[in-house]
């Protein structure tokens, strides 16, 4: 519980620093789109943020050891999920960070609606895979 609250607080702090420091919303799907769709004028800060995100990993490993990471190895599931996440976050203009954390913190109705929608569909998907498909591919 304390790890979750502390980690969440750090995520909030990072978003706060980005907003108060350079006036940008910490939305990772935005960062991805900026980097890979070559959006002029948005690329630099996205690149530095991305570099920082990657740098956090060895830093964490240095002090706390390799973190747990368990996920499906089923390539069909991995590829379809990746494509859906890539399309969905582009079309809906955000994900867990941009809509979920920053948008909710701004009390944006649009972001709160988006967050409830992707959470509901995420829950439904897990329900279907775990209960009706006997934990398909997991």
């Amino acid at each position: 519980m304390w790890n979750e609250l502390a980690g969440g607080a750090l995520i909030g702090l990072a978003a706060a620093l980005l907003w108060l420091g350079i006036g940008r919303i910490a939305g990772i799907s935005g960062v991805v789109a900026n980097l890979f769709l070559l959006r002029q004028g948005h690329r630099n800060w996205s690149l530095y943020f991305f570099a920082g995100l990657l740098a956090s990993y060895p830093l964490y490993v240095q002090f706390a050891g390799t973190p747990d990471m368990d996920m499906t190895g089923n390539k069909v599931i991995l590829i379809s999920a990746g494509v859906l996440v890539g399309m969905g976050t582009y079309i809906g203009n955000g994900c867990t960070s941009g809509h979920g954390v920053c948008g909710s913190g701004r009390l944006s109705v649009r972001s709160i609606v988006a967050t409830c929608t992707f959470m509901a569909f995420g829950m439904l998907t897990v329900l279907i895979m775990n209960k009706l498909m006997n934990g398909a591919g997991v």
Partner: protein
Amino acid sequence: MNMKIMVKIITPLLAGIIFGLGLLISGMNNPAKVRGFLDIFGDWQPALMAVMVAAIAIFAVAYALSNKMKQPWFHSIFHQPSLTVLDKRLFIGAALFGIGWGMVGLCPGPALLNIMTGREDILIFIVALLVGNRIAHFTVGPAK
């Protein structure tokens, strides 16, 4: 390099490091834990909720502070999100993302962070995500 340029590099870099550490400390880098949160009809793990609540609360305070500021500390303007409409696009996008998120338990932040594990399954997911991004860009296009 002058001071101003350095600050503009260091601020997002530091934000990225703190963000990543937050994901790792909370365990949200781990897809199994995220799927545990989404599994409300099974063995529900509320961890993600605590992460979200803490993050939202702190960002909400920062956002309220910014309402009283003319500009950010190291930049000329706040890039305020301009979209407010609840259209079909928002619902379809969020639904597609939700399905993909539920299937594996990875959203873009943890996916990018986990590149550092060098695992093949993560790289496959990232390539698929970028392909999905491109498909949406060329079919639907950017939001107006």
